């Protein structure tokens, strides 16, 4: 294991009675990396993440988060929380407090908080600064959650399904925020149901199913995606033609020669991350 790793997990097991939720996971997330954990509901994602966050204790295995065992109780555990930020799944707390009141109150908990006004700008809630949490839209509410996750200037940020219920525009601007945080050198562990989100943000993705990691790879190479046959489609005689090929460049050159220049409605595509992912999950069912 590398010494710069933000998260190190070896042989993690979590059982509830006879049910095994997490069944021997090994995982390393490097410092400064955005790592996305993908998997269907009930696959063990949330259990894994909540063990890393210190909410649950492992049945077996080694867990180190920023060099610390998150299950440590008492004041050492509280101190460690200065360095992590947690954005939970949907919440509805502090409904009667304004955006400013909540964020500035939470800033008090940390040794080294970020500037409250700056955080409000970063998450784009400037116009809603005096609005009560209950008056915010779903997307704005989620931004408040993110603000509370980053107010303590954490080294490591956990994002649990951060954009569920966002419209496409809100999702885009959320992605920009995450990219900014990465540029500041933060490590981010993300769980998501949206494959395009993982593709846009993550340096690496891990697919988890039935409590086991199936594969860890970059979004470009997951499931052999980089070597998967590409689909070339074009229009000829009013009909859309398509072929699957390992060597799309050659096919396109051939077509170009045949048409004597540009090929009508030419498209070259590799299977997207979602198709690969669904295939991976499907094969295991």
């Amino acid at each position, binding site marked *: 294991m590398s010494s710069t790793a933000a998260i190190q997990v070896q042989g993690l097991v979590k059982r509830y009675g006879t049910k095994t939720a997490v069944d021997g996971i090994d995982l390393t997330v490097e410092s400064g990396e955005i790592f996305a954990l993908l998997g269907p509901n009930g696959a063990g994602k949330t259990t894994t993440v909540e063990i890393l966050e210190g909410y649950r204790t492992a049945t077996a295995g080694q867990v180190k988060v920023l060099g610390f065992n998150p299950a440590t109780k008492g*004041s050492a555990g509280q101190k460690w929380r200065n360095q992590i930020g947690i954005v939970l799944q949907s919440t509805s*707390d502090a409904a009667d407090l304004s955006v400013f009141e909540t964020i500035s109150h939470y800033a008090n908990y940390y040794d080294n908080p970020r500037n409250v006004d700056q955080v409000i700008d970063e998450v784009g809630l400037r116009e809603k600064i005096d609005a009560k949490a209950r008056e915010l839209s779903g997307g704005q509410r989620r931004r408040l959650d993110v603000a509370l996750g980053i107010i303590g200037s954490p080294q490591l940020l956990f994002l649990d399904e951060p954009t569920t219920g966002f419209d496409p525009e809100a999702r885009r601007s959320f992605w920009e925020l995450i990219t900014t945080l990465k540029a500041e050198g933060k490590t981010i562990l993300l769980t998501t149901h949206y494959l395009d989100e993982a593709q846009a943000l993550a340096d690496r993705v891990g697919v988890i199913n039935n409590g086991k990691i199936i594969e860890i790879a970059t979004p470009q190479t997951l499931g052999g995606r980089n070597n998967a046959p590409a689909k070339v489609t074009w229009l000829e005689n009013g009909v859309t033609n398509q072929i699957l090929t390992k060597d799309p460049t050659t096919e396109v050159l051939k077509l170009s020669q045949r048409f004597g220049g540009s090929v009508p409605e030419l498209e070259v595509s590799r299977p997207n991350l979602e198709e690969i992912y669904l295939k991976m999950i499907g094969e295991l069912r």
Partner: protein
Amino acid sequence: MNTLLETLRIGGLRSRIELKQFMRQRESVVFTLFFPVILLFIFGTVFKDTIAPGVTFSQYFVAGMIASGLVNTGFQQLAITIPMERDDGTLKRLRGTPMSVSSYFIGKALLVTFLMIIQTALLLFFGAIVFDLNLPSDPLLWWNFTWLVLLGSACSTVLGIAFSVVPKSGRGASAVVSPIVIILQFFSGVFFVFTSLPSFMQQLAAIFPLKWLTQGMRSVFLPDDFATQEVAGTWELGKTALVLLIWLVLGLIFAIKKFKWSRE
């Protein structure tokens, strides 16, 4: 020492934010702060009798209502709102921050104390102007009043935190907690003169703090010779302090050991 001060400071900040949230929920303000005053009006207006020479029922009732106010603002309020905080994610979010658990408890205790002061002031004020409640002039009685309120608040707070593990959900919490409080009020001599209750009720009530608090408050607000009409023939203040202390310690141990941050 530094961490202790920090814990207290954050506890103070928590009580401020808790109070802000409390005051913004109109139903909680009415239910917790004004309900005892409303009850005082109803009971004081309906029962105009004198229960002993120079002692009206409303006077007896004010003493009981101040005591049960301690149960309302502490035990009842916390045993209902903490499960709600467990459901809406407040507790989980707090758990993920460096805030110490003690600060959370301190914030709750300060909130209860503050609400208690407001509520008691309201009861005394309306009791005095509407029902001619006699306020004690002897400083010793005010001293008794003070320690009864402080010890009662502390006891009520820790028992509320301890009991918050019982309701399965925030939505159902009120249905679990409120009947217990109302039955306790009936048994403990808040709505009726305690000595007129069947003896099994009296004995049952003597296990719980509310009976002792109401009796203690009567020692403050009723003439001293009324003590002869109590079950033991005296005010039993020493025993009251002991019972409250035992509940306080038991509640504290249970609250610290069993507090639930999440539903599962």
